[in-house]
């Protein structure tokens, strides 16, 4: 099961200090550990937001290190070149160790596409190959439906599209074993949602 999904920046943001990241979309799928009961809902939400922010920052530095180590700079893709952008994307994985509100040793899977990153936090011992494929699929949809390669702000204003596509591809955080026909059927549903 997936604990949460994030879209956040990995480029420098003028309003923030270096190394900081702006979380543009966050979806936590539900209670992961039963030990959150001592807090009020507001406190829980606050703790969760802060924890997500910490994860996003860790991904930001992982992306920076990975890009630095591999050297080459790629050409920036523009609208219409989503497949190319995905092909060039770097990906990686690391373990969270002990963390409050996340199960012990949760795994963070990230995909860096130019100045944004898509991040999944999974439970330990999850099928990472399946998670990776799911993340790529979700990222592809996000790039297309939210026109992320362009300068617009759809990621903020049309975030219901992300909700709708997560609802189908990762319902309540469940990773799905989808062959190409199941995927096609879900893609059709997503396309019809977006076109309304």
């Amino acid at each position, binding site marked *: 099961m997936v604990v949460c999904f994030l879209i956040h920046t990995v480029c420098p943001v003028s309003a923030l200090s270096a190394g900081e990241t702006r979380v543009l979309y966050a979806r936590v799928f539900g209670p992961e550990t039963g030990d959150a009961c001592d807090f009020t809902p507001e406190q829980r939400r606050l703790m969760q937001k802060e924890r997500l922010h910490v994860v996003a920052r860790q991904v930001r530095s992982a992306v920076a290190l990975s890009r630095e180590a591999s050297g080459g700079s790629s050409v920036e893709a523009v609208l219409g070149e989503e497949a190319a952008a995905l092909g060039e994307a770097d990906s990686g994985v690391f373990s969270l160790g002990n963390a409050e509100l996340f199960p012990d040793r949760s795994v963070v899977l990230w995909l860096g596409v130019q100045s944004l990153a898509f991040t999944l936090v999974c439970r330990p011992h999850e099928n990472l190959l399946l998670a990776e494929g799911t993340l790529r699929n979700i990222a592809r949809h996000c790039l297309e439906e939210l026109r992320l390669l*362009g300068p617009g702000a759809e990621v903020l204003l049309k975030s219901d599209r992300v909700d*709708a596509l997560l609802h189908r591809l990762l319902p309540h955080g469940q990773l799905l074993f989808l062959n190409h026909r199941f995927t096609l059927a879900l893609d059709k549903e997503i396309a019809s949602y977006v076109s309304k």
Partner: protein
Amino acid sequence: MYAAATESLIKQAREIKEEELQRFCGRIFKQLHTKDVSGDTVDSLQRLNLIVSATKYARELPSDLVMKLQTVLRSSSCPEQLQVLSSSIIRESSPPSVHSLCSDPSHDSRTFSYVASVVLTQAGNKEDVMPLCHHLLKSLESRLSDGQISRHTLPILSKMITAYPEILTDDQVNLVSRKLVDWLRYASMQQGASMSSGGFFSGPRTRQPAPLTEVDGVVVGNFFTVLCVGQSYTEDQWMNMYTFSMIKSWLLTYDTDGTTNTESDDRSEVDSSVMSMVSATSSSSRLLPPKERLREKAFEYCQRLIEQSDRKALKKTDTELQKACIIESVSIMDIICGEDPSYVYRAFPCIKALYGRLNGDLTYARALLPIAQFYLNHSETAAVDSEAVFCQLFSHCPAEQFNEPMLAFEFVQFCLLNASVLQDRVANYRQSFPNLLKFLAWNSSGLIEEFVELLPSLIAPDTAIELLHTILDLPCLAAALDLQQRSACYHASDRTTWDQQGAKVAACLDAFRQPLYRGLFLYILRPEAGTGDTIDRLKMLHEILADMSESPRVVRCAQVVPVLLQVYFNTVTQKADEKMMNQMLLVLLERNSLLYNIKTFNVEVQKVFSTHLQALCRLHPPLIVDQSREILEFASSPANIYSKEDFYTHVVWVIGEYLSVSYDPRCTVELITSFFESLEAVLFEITQVRQSASPPSFSPRLVTVLMTTLAKLATRSQDLIPRVSLCLSKMRTFARSAPVMACYSEEDTEEIITRAHELINLLKLPNVAQFVLAPSAGGDSPRWHRDTNASLPQGMRAVSGLLHRHSSFLPTTPYGTWWT
């Protein structure tokens, strides 16, 4: 991608004032009351969604709007977009809606799922999700047709049980198990009705649903699985897919020891012999209780998936799915065999055949890990030889795919999870540390935490020294791996790409390809330990790779080496015998000057060496006498001061502390004298006062340590006292000379002078000096070094004070408390 416009939107959303927000909410409330849903309404809801999500502090919305949104969420006739937006807004805002939504969960599949997403996110405890759970179970119980059960029933259930496994009673677990069996094993074998059924001219016969096919196009001949392809799917086929997606988590929660109560444990023990007979034939599986039946069906499903994965898929996504299915199936079979060992005999032929198929295919490397786990867990039960599997795993996999981040991560996690078993049972695990360290060299920052935990399991008595050398050369390994990768990608003839990498890298690449240096690279890139602790021409290797020392990967790698060294030393010193300690000391002395030249790397490694030099000598003081020749050689050469002052200082201190007959009866007067003479010569040389002298490039601490050590040695061979007194008397001149005054602070020069003075006085009373400066039994304890009340300088000052009847005490300098 991310523009200023986006940033300013977030700012606006965060800074919206309470008043304005309330007004906005009022407007939305009105908009929601109109019959038609306009684009405006959607727009407003999207903005409200942004407002409530943009801050980490929950926004409070007016309760009438929240109630209206709840109504929208629950009404199946509303367009999905409104449900999505309502769900999201309610989730992110205050007051929480958990209880009001639960009170009347809807029957519509899609609506139920969106309501559940709110409940699951806002739930704080088991009670909050109970109503949802009850509703789910009721729908499963009540023999509704599959079209009426929410498609997301299983994901929702799965999410609930991960946080609250106790939420289901045994009966409920059985109920769900029965449904899971139905979906898993008995889903329809025909395609679903197509949406577009051919058009006006197609007759009823042409509307016959086509048969399902395997991923390679062949018609399906066995039960439905996720690897079956059809134009459209029936509801129970969708449920088949959802079931398989969560079955591992289900089995882990309800079918493993710890969550079953003692009654069923007893039962399973008594019946295990019956089970092994019964499970041999699946037709009699109807006699099994629901849990065991689910196990049986899940096992069959996995076996089928493994067979289906042998087919050559027509679509790339299906090939990727086959890999994921193999991994999942093997893991599930592993869990089932763990619960019921009788399955092991059925599983092994399948797993062995699978291994035979995948072995050697690099694209399936990740699937080898669950297979290896299976062998580790069950090969003893089945009396199957697993050596070949682990040989392949440790000898080939890391060397060929160290640069695959996912594989590297999973491989290291596998080692971590099974470290103690691997240490004991798999012979070539510890031998393979050169290969395993390749993962770390390539991705230092990503894997260092895992390796800090893993390293102790890799330390074996006969390869420990080689491991130490390998850790010290980890940055070289990183550079060599980088060159190996580039060399594989670029041909020397392709000059343009070659040169594009920069002159430095190109030069190293040239060296990599030269036959002359082949041996060096073969050594550093070796897959196994045992061919020798290190090589003679290590210095040459460092020189060849000098141009890579600034590459990011090498620099990151250099940063993690000190951490690893600490872990190494902390582990080894606990278990090392005398011989190994001797060897380690030699490595410390030797490798000090033989490190790959990266900025600050030398300094950091030296610090670790210094700490552990002390620790080693404290644990085993006779080391000084054992290695007296090497230590003397090191201490005698002032050149060592200039390149490694910190370590040199520690060596001198260790000599002063432990070179004594009370620690080692072999410590003769001749030995003490020879050390004394060498150190005296060094002190003379560095403190010469000449007209043309340059300011000292060493710290004052070195001078005080040398002085103190000489004094200590003199108390053990009292003929030397006059000599040391003479030496010390020259220190004042040194400290007051112009270059030194310009270089050292007032405090430091005072300390040198004071210390020299105190030592001279102390040595006038040899017996007292012996007591103060000679180590005693209690002198080894850290208290002497750390406790300012018990430490030597304090003691000496007290004695000095008594001798001179002074009542003032000079303050201790920072290094005073440490240096006794």
